C-alpha cells in the first residue's frame, strides 16, 4: 500500500508525498515492457493484415497465373511485361504525370488558404478548419460524380458561362480528359494539403518575422527567407500525403477521365478483375509503389535541404 494520505491532510504534506512517489523509480526496461505489451494487439493486427499481405503481394508478383492455376516458380516475366509493354508504360507515365500535376496544383491552391488561416484569421479558426473538412466527409463517389455534372457538356459550368454570355458553345476541354481528373482530385485532396501546411505555419515563432522586419527585410523577402523555409516541413508533408494516394486512385479516372485520363490503378483493377491475371496486377502495383516511393524519398530530401531551421 502506498504511503497513505490521511483525509484532510494539509496541502504541504500532500506535496511532500507526491515528490517521492514510487513511480519515478520505475526502471526503464519495465516501462519498455509495458509499452510493448500495450501496443502489441495493434502491432500484431498490422503485421497480419498489412505487413504479411504486402510481402505476399510482392512474392505473388514473381509467380504466374494460367487461368485458375497458380505457378509458384519464381520468374521476372510479370515485371518484363509491366515495364516493357507500351500500354503499361503509357499508363505509368500518365499516372505519374497526373499525380505530380494534381499535387502541385493542390498544394499551390492550398498554401494561401493555410497562410490566411494562420496569419489573418484571429477568431474562429476552428470553425474555418471545420468548414474546410466538411466537403471531404461527403461520399467520395458522389463528389466525383458531381464534378462530372459540373464539368459536362450541358453541365453547370457551361450553362452558367453561356447564361452569362461569356461563351457561345459549351467548352469541351474540361470533361473526359486530364483536366477533369486534375480538377476533381485537387478538390478531393484539398483538406489533406491545407492541414499540414497550416500546422507548420502555426508553429512559426512570430517574433522571428518581427526580427526580419526590424533588420530591414521587405515583406516579400521576409516571406521567402523566413516564412517559406520554416513552412517547408508542412509543404513536404502535404505533397507526400497528396501524391502517394493519388497514384492509386481509380474512381476519378474512370468517371471523369475518359480514355485519355485512365491511370495505372485502372489497369491494376482490370488485371485483378476482368483480365484475371492477378500476378501481373501485383507486379504493376509493386512497380508503381516502388516508383512513387523513390519519388517520395527524393521530395523529402529536397524539402529537407530547402527547409529552414531555427537555431
Amino acid at each position: 500500500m502506498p504511503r497513505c494520505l490521511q483525509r484532510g491532510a494539509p496541502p504541504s504534506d500532500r506535496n511532500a508525498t507526491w515528490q517521492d512517489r514510487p513511480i519515478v523509480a520505475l526502471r526503464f526496461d519495465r516501462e519498455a515492457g509495458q509499452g510493448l505489451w500495450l501496443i502489441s494487439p495493434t502491432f500484431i493486427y498490422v503485421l497480419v493484415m498489412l505487413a504479411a499481405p504486402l510481402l505476399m503481394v510482392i512474392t505473388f508478383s514473381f509467380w504466374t497465373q494460367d487461368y485458375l492455376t497458380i505457378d509458384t516458380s519464381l520468374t521476372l516475366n510479370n515485371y518484363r511485361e509491366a515495364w516493357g509493354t507500351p500500354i503499361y508504360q503509357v499508363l505509368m507515365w500518365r499516372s505519374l504525370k497526373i499525380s505530380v500535376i494534381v499535387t502541385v496544383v493542390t498544394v499551390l491552391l492550398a498554401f494561401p488558404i493555410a497562410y490566411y488561416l494562420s496569419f489573418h484569421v484571429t477568431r474562429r479558426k476552428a470553425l474555418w478548419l471545420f468548414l474546410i473538412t466538411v466537403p471531404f466527409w461527403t461520399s467520395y463517389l458522389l463528389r466525383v460524380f458531381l464534378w462530372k455534372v459540373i464539368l459536362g457538356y450541358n453541365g453547370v459550368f457551361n450553362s452558367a458561362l453561356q447564361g452569362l454570355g461569356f461563351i457561345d458553345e459549351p467548352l469541351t476541354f474540361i470533361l473526359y480528359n486530364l483536366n477533369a481528373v486534375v480538377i476533381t482530385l485537387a478538390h478531393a485532396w484539398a483538406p489533406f494539403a491545407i492541414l499540414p501546411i497550416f500546422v507548420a505555419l502555426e508553429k512559426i515563432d512570430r517574433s522571428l518575422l518581427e526580427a526580419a522586419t526590424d533588420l530591414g527585410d521587405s515583406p516579400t523577402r521576409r516571406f521567402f527567407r523566413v516564412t517559406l523555409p520554416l513552412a517547408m516541413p508542412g509543404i513536404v508533408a502535404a505533397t507526400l500525403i497528396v501524391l502517394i494516394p493519388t497514384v492509386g486512385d481509380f474512381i476519378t479516372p474512370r468517371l471523369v477521365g475518359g480514355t485519355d485520363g485512365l491511370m495505372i490503378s485502372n489497369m491494376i483493377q482490370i488485371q485483378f478483375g476482368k483480365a484475371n491475371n492477378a500476378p501481373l496486377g501485383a507486379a504493376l502495383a509493386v512497380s508503381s509503389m516502388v516508383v512513387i516511393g523513390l519519388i517520395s524519398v527524393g521530395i523529402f530530401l529536397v524539402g529537407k535541404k530547402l527547409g529552414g531551421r531555427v537555431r
Partner: protein
Amino acid sequence: MKWLSGKWLAIYAVVYIIFLYAPVILLPLFAFNTSTIIAFPLSGFTTEWFMGLWYTDTLHTALGNSMLVGLSTAFLSTLLGAFAARASARFAFPGKTGIVGLIMLPLVLPEIIIAVALLVMLNQLGMPLSLWTVVGGHVLICTPFAIAILSSAYRGLDRELEEASFDLGESRWGTFRRVTLPLVLPGVISSLLITFTISLDEFIIAFFLTGTDVTLPVYIWSQLRFPAKLPSVMALGTILLVVSVLLLIAAEALRRRSAARQGIDTTLAGV
C-alpha cells in the same frame, strides 16, 4: 507584399470555399428536382426520390450491411487505436518509431494497394470474401485516425492525476474506471464517430473485398451506371451528407468538451 495582404487572401479564401462546396451544394438541388436528367435548369420541386428510397429493398440491405461493417470497424479500430495511442503517449520502448510508423502507414498507402494485398492473401489462404473481410480492411485504414484522435486525448491527460489515484490507494482498474476513462471518454466517442463515418463512405476496399453482400458505396457505384436511377442516388447522397455532418459536429463538440474538461481538471489538481 500585396498578394499576401489580408484583403486579397480573404477574397481568395471565399472563392476557394465555393470551389470546395460546389459539388456538395448541387447534391440537394438535384435530389429535390423533378427531372431525371441531372442538369440545369431545375424543373420543379419533388420529394418523390426520397419516397422511392423507402421502397428500394436492395438499398435497405446495403444500408444494413454498411451499418454492420461501420459499427464493427468503429469498435475494433477505436479499441486497437486506444492501445496504440496509450502506449505511444505514455511509454518509451525500443522500436517505437518503426512500430508506430507501420501502424500509421495506411494513412499514406493508396487504398488500392491495401485492397489488392489483402485480396491476394485471402485468396491464397482460401478464405471466402464477406463483409468481415471488408471490416478487416477498414479497421486497417481507420486505426491511424483513431490513434490521432486518442493521442491528443491522452496527451491532455495529466500523468500526475493517475499517480495521485494510485497513491490514494486505487487499484489499476479503479484508476482506469474512475480517473482515466472519464477524461478520455469524449475522445473515445469522437474516435468511434469518425471511424464509423470513414467506413460508411469507403469504397475501394469494400469493392475489392466484399463477396456477394454490397455496402452502401458499392451499391451507389452500381447505380451510377443507370441514368434513370441518378435522382434517387442524389437523394440518398443528400441523406448521407446530412448524417455525416451531424456525426462530425457531434464528434467535434465532444472533442472540445474533452479538451475543456481536461483543462479544468488539471488546474484543479494543481491547487
